[in-house]
């Protein structure tokens, strides 16, 4: 309850901060929608040459594109600002103020900031998904929707955990801005069905950097094609990654050396 109140307070203070710099907010929101458009167009162009990609039709692939844009928006909204801030705080030593506060430090460090322009990306993601449904003439069954909700939550938890893991590395290596760039580059693969890729790459995208769990499997869920085993695997993976990243965070905090006064 206390954490819910804190979260509401954080969201309010972030909103005030965004309002301080309106031009920046508008530019970032526009940029987000523009990128969503570019992603959409590039996949559409792709399908002028082929009818299917890894067994997925154009409309089905659009659902995956929608999810990648949606998650990209989520990263923009929450993960990028907080992880950037963590890296900065570790380097400058202001993490002192986070670690001396009587609240869970992971909560305070990872949910403190928000960049609302990410909501523009997320809306674009929803729009692309609706477009795909309209073109398909498809409405998901309640069971598919329920599965989708679980898979989407798992997807966000997996992405959050991976970002948290990247953030913890900053406690040891201090400057790791490039690592988040690397993630975003790899995340570009998330706009295609994982079945597009073959062999080792596909295995890597499923198990090493589990991008398949972020977009392909939730898309299968909403399209009513998801197997029960994948659902269980997604929930288990999300739970494991979250616990593991939280454990790493606690270890990292112990080795925090702060910067001098």
């Amino acid at each position, binding site marked *: 309850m*206390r954490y819910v*109140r*804190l979260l509401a*307070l*954080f969201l309010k*203070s972030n909103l*005030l*901060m965004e309002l*301080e*710099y309106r031009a920046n907010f508008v530019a970032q929101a526009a940029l987000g929608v523009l990128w969503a458009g570019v992603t959409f167009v590039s996949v559409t162009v792709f399908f002028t040459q082929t009818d299917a990609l890894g067994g997925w039709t154009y409309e089905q692939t659009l659902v995956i594109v929608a999810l990648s844009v949606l998650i990209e928006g989520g990263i923009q909204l929450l993960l990028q600002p907080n992880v950037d801030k963590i890296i900065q705080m570790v380097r*400058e*030593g*202001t993490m*002192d*103020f986070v*670690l*001396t*506060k*009587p*609240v869970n430090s992971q909560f*305070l460090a990872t949910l403190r900031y928000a960049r609302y322009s990410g909501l523009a990306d997320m809306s674009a993601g929803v729009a692309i998904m609706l477009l795909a449904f309209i073109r398909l003439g498809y409405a998901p069954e309640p069971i598919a929707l329920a599965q989708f909700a679980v898979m989407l939550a798992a997807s966000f938890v997996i992405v959050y955990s991976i970002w948290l893991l990247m953030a913890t590395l900053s406690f040891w290596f201090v400057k790791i801005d490039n690592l988040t760039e690397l993630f975003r580059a790899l995340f570009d693969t998330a706009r295609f069905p994982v079945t597009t890729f073959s062999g080792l790459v596909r295995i890597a995208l499923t198990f090493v950097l589990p991008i398949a769990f972020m977009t392909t499997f939730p898309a299968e869920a909403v399209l009513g094609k998801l197997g029960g085993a994948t659902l269980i695997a997604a929930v288990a993976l999300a739970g494991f990654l979250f616990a593991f990243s939280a454990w790493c965070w606690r270890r990292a905090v*112990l080795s*925090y*050396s*702060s910067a*001098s*006064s």
Partner: protein
Amino acid sequence: MGSLRAFVARKYRTVKAVDDVSFDIEAGEMVGFLGPNGAGKTTTLKVLSGLLYPTSGTATVLGFTPHKREPAYLKQFTLVMGQKQQLLWDLPAIETFLINQAIYEIPRDQYAATLKELDQLLDLGPLLKKQVRKLSLGERMKCELAAALLHRPKVLFLDEPTIGLDVTMQVRIRDFIAEYNRRHGATVILTSHYMADVTALCDRIIVIDKGKVLYDGNFRALIERVAPYKILKLQFEQPVACEQLAAFGDIASCDGMTAVLHVPRSQAAEAAARLLTQVEVDDVNFEDPPVEDIIREVFAGRVAGLGTAHEQTPAVNPAGAG
């Protein structure tokens, strides 16, 4: 080349930031940590506030082990660092205050009362509604202090709270800390390399250098010991014979028109009175030896037998510290 080598093959070596720094501080005491840059003052504060985990030895504050970072402990101290700020840069300070209120779970009426008191002591008034980035350094420091004290901590760790401030603002902050200590009986541990901060606030000082305690004890006692004299500065109407002055104290310098004498503290008043009757003096001035010089003596190791002189630590009455 050195940086390039460090990039490829980085060597790590263990640096003892603090080594055998032992002390006890009573509730309500105001203690000053003195030491040059890199002495280990900040490291000691970080251990006490639970940020650093001591590789050996123990720290106990208010009965808690700091590095366990139990919420019950975190709620009872505060950390203010002159070089780092917790206020949100783009928003008015009051926004940070509200977040701290929620984080520390400060009841609404207590928050209002504390804010009112801090406003009265620090003159926050209009500052709270201005974006922090638009405040001057001094104004910002006032708000930083207020943000750090909203939860009425019992222990204050102040790391160079006056750094970079002009003299007036330094005095202002100093007075505030003294007043806060007097009103709430809070324990204050202060680091600074501005000697004036420490002399004005703390009866007890702990001098640290290269991670070791060089002196721990009453500040006045240290002065008595290192510099048991007062400095008497004289200016004469007519040239005087320097030898004549030897009767009043040790002659540090003398050029006939001016002279500087070192007079034992106990005899200072009497020596000055005698001097005024026997010599035509234009101006006379008593001074304490500069604290910087005294501390330099301690650092230079020229003060024998000081060491970690715990037995010299007197009971300090915080009320008298202001």
